[in-house]
């Protein structure tokens, strides 16, 4: 009877959407509550931040690759951060490193990735008119926007942005006496992060609510595309972990501004002994990494979800082990909360904790390995079409394996002693989390661009972009493993003080060149993206011959997504190349009773229960 109720409300809803009310520019493009517009807002803001974050990394890469270079030409934009001798200021170097990390992890790979694709795909792929709360969704973006503004402003203040690393460990981040960046820059960082957390929570609650409540008829949880599963699990992780970061930041705010001693104890700095006693800097690390570790899965899971969808579609094969993929993601989500202290093996915490966290950390490698194997098996005996999205997805899997394997070193406490905070760590997370998630983002943009803007991106430019980026990323990050094994510490302005680190200057130069080329290649993407929005070839309704619901909408879906009734769903999303079927794909909206020739035995039974009238007639109509 509940079904009947739903249908009644649906009818009412449809009526509402039939009379098109014209929206003004502001409510359509700026303060929009439409999930597709909000997704694009997140995407464009994310792209902006990616350019900023990548650009900052180039500046410090120049310092590392060409320590003797005269950087006076950067004075017009960097002012006094370039010293009179034409050198990068050593503290601003740390500011660059910090802002690069913060921007990439939070603004690009969390907001830019989850914000874009959760917003865009959840309603379209589960068959909903919009998010559960369009208003909260709009707030989510505008909190993110405010957070962005505050963070961007902090780049330009006189004392410099927060400079204590993206992990902002106190006491360094708590005491303006310790570094200039811990003054106003750090205050802005904390304000910005508080706003960001609000944005993430508003978004996350919306995603979870929408997936649970607004699935169209027939869209059971076991028929959801893996993208939706990934976004759903990601949102749950975010809701559970971001509040902890907020409390972590709040205590830091108290220590900085109100004289408390949560993280501070027995400190002598700037010629005076501070009164703070009894606090623990380790407490901050526990709280920070309780978010910080789930955060890396918040970054990578949506990318893996996107990849699952794209690899399956373009291999023209069902994703291998659909249920195993879901179980792996659930296992990763659960375990992600109990591995945080592997970032703290040498922090001075009790070594017994180190043993426990080694054990738990290496367990999380199992579901990750299962996912990688399943991707590879999906390619096996496929009929692979190399769209740009597919190429980026294959690249993602390659990075995920390369970077994931080095996690076995770092997660093992005994080995971490020597590798902790070296370039080995830098290589590890840039591959497994940074580049992999970034490739997920790009794959998603190339794949769903036709649905976002109704036009196609240029495939040739896309492939050129892929190859330059893919080779570039490996050339940037793979060599870093070697200098990491050689013990090179990260966040070092230069290595000239140490005889131990006197080698590998040519390797650092090589990495810098690769980074510049890779960064430059992103402008091909930017051109392709913005040009195609206006000048791209008009997209067919279903350019990749995909099964999921979003491809049943009009070329450019309007507010409400489907002009008529919301389609019903009769099957899972992965009926590609089903034996007996005339085409190599069967969209989720085709009833099983219409495809008797390709139904599996148990599906034949299900077809009888569908209650779809006279399959023959309907099929004729369709054809």
């Amino acid at each position, binding site marked *: 009877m509940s079904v009947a109720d739903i249908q009644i409300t649906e009818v009412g809803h449809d009526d509402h959407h039939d009379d098109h009310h014209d929206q003004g520019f502001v409510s359509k493009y700026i303060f929009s509550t439409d999930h597709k517009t909000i997704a694009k807002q997140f995407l464009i803001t994310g792209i902006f931040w990616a350019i900023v974050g990548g650009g900052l990394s180039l500046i410090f890469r120049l310092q590392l690759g060409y320590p003797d270079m005269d950087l006076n030409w950067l004075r017009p934009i960097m002012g006094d951060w370039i010293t009179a001798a034409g050198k990068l200021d050593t503290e601003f170097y740390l500011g660059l490193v910090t802002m690069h990390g913060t921007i990439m992890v939070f603004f690009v790979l969390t907001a830019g990735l989850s914000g874009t694709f959760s917003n865009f795909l959840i309603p379209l792929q589960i068959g909903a008119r919009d998010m559960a709360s369009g208003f909260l969704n709009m707030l989510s973006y505008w909190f993110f926007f405010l957070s962005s503004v505050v963070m961007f402003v902090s780049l330009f203040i006189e004392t410099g942005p927060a400079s204590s690393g993206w992990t902002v460990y106190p006491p360094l981040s708590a005491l303006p006496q310790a570094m200039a960046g811990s003054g106003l820059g750090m205050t802005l960082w904390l304000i910005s992060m508080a706003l960001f957390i609000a944005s993430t929570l508003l978004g996350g609650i919306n995603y979870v609510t929408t997936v649970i409540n607004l699935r169209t008829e027939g869209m059971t949880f076991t028929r959801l595309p893996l993208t939706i599963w990934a976004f759903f699990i990601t949102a749950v992780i975010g809701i559970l972990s971001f509040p902890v970061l907020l409390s972590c930041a709040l205590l830091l705010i108290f220590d900085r501004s109100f004289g408390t001693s949560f993280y501070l104890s027995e400190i002598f700095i700037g010629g005076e*002994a501070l009164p703070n006693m009894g606090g623990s800097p380790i407490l901050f690390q526990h709280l920070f990494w309780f978010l910080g570790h789930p955060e890396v899965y918040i970054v990578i899971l949506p990318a893996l979800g996107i990849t699952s969808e794209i690899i399956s579609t373009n291999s023209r094969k069902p994703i291998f082990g659909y249920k195993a993929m879901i179980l792996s993601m659930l296992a990763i989500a659960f375990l992600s909360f109990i591995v945080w202290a592997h970032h703290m093996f040498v922090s001075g915490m009790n070594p017994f904790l180190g043993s426990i966290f080694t054990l738990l950390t290496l367990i999380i490698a199992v579901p990750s390995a299962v996912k990688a194997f399943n991707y590879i098996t999906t390619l096996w005996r496929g009929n692979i079409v190399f769209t740009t999205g597919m190429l980026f997805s294959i690249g993602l899997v390659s990075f995920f394996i390369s970077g994931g394997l080095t996690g076995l070193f770092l997660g093992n406490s*005994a080995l971490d002693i020597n590798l902790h905070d070296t370039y080995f760590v830098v290589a590890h997370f840039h591959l497994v989390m940074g580049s992999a998630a970034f490739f997920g983002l790009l794959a998603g943009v190339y794949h769903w661009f036709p649905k976002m803007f109704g036009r196609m991106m240029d495939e040739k430019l896309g492939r050129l972009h892929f190859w330059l980026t893919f080779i570039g990323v490996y050339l940037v990050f793979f060599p870093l493993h070697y200098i990491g094994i050689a013990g090179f510490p990260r966040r070092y302005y230069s290595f000239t003080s140490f005889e131990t680190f006197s080698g590998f200057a040519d390797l650092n130069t090589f990495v810098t060149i690769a980074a510049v080329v890779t960064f430059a290649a992103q402008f091909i993407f930017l051109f392709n993206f913005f040009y195609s929005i206006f000048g791209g070839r008009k997209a067919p309704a279903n350019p990749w011959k995909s099964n999921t619901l979003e491809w049943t909408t009009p070329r450019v879906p309007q507010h409400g997504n489907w002009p008529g009734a919301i389609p019903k769903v009769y099957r899972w999303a992965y009926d590609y190349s089903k034996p007996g079927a005339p085409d190599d794909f069967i969209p989720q909206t085709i009833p099983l009773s219409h495809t008797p020739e390709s139904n599996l035995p148990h599906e034949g039974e299900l077809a009888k229960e569908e209650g779809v009238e006279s399959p023959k007639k309907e099929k004729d109509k369709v054809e």
Partner: protein
Amino acid sequence: MLNFVIAIAVVLIIVILLVIFRVSTLVGIARGDTRKQVPSGNRLQATLLLLFLIAGLIGFFYYSFGGLDDDFTLPVASQHGEATSRLFWITMAVTCTVFIITQIFLFGFAFRYQHREGEKAYFYPHNNTLEYIWTAVPAVVLALLILSGLKVWGKITAAAPDDAEVVEIMGYQFAWAVRYPGSDNKLGGYDYRKIDATNQMGIDFSDRASFDDFVPREIHVPKGRPVEFKIRARDVIHSVYQPHFRLQMNAVPGMPTRFWFVPTKSTADMRAETGNPDFNYELVCNKICGYGHFGMKYIIVVDEPEEYEEWYKSQDPWLKQNADYLGQVPDGLQEAARIAAGIDGSADEVGGLLMSSSN
């Protein structure tokens, strides 16, 4: 003028690129690329993926086995370092095997199963046996790695032997300060409120164990004997890192930490082994601590045990070098302090003190 020319050139190049892009798009449309089921150049992409695999593997082997100008494997110079190093290379063998096999499958399948007209992919949604196998095999391999890791970890982090040489290391912006317990083999207390420009470490002279403590310019440790670093920081977090010893522990303000190890190669041994007459063990700061983070160096000298004893005896207590700090010593301990620190006061003064104490 030059800038103007460069700007013009850049604009021209962009215009040319745009024209090429536009022309190739139009040619593509004329050829009917847009109506094709599969984008043209599919075979080229498959081939490029295969070439990437081959070139990547060649590069990987070349650089891993001597292709780099410098050697990336630092010689191991501590007992536990030999254990972690062995585990490191075992893990390396396991991960590299998996790395090579999976990448070959990934790119190999991409090439082998590229789109072919008229073919259909194999509908293969799941296979529970396969899933069980590749859940179980990594689990077993990981269990082995974890167990050997935990065994080593347990030994490294166990309490230091009683006869370990104790060295206190304190990090501050942007240097290290080091203190030895002196002839009584007991480190004196410290109090961060006692720190000043001279007494960098805040040595507490109300504790009689501090009187003979000495603060040298370099760290000396004996080869083949256990050494315990007692580590602290006075302003922000630093990290005591020495890659040859495979040693690292954060220095945390308000929370003393420690790390013990047995050096196995003296500085002279290492100079011979590396062929570098200037070789020195360098203590590195490995936790971001401010603008001078990259310059926090301290030399560690590993001596033969006899040399070490000699050096140890030749060091003057800090109190002797800074006799005005006697003022911080409580009255009842003045004489003990002078004796322990080896301070020769004027004969009268010492005599007077001796008499007063005997009374």
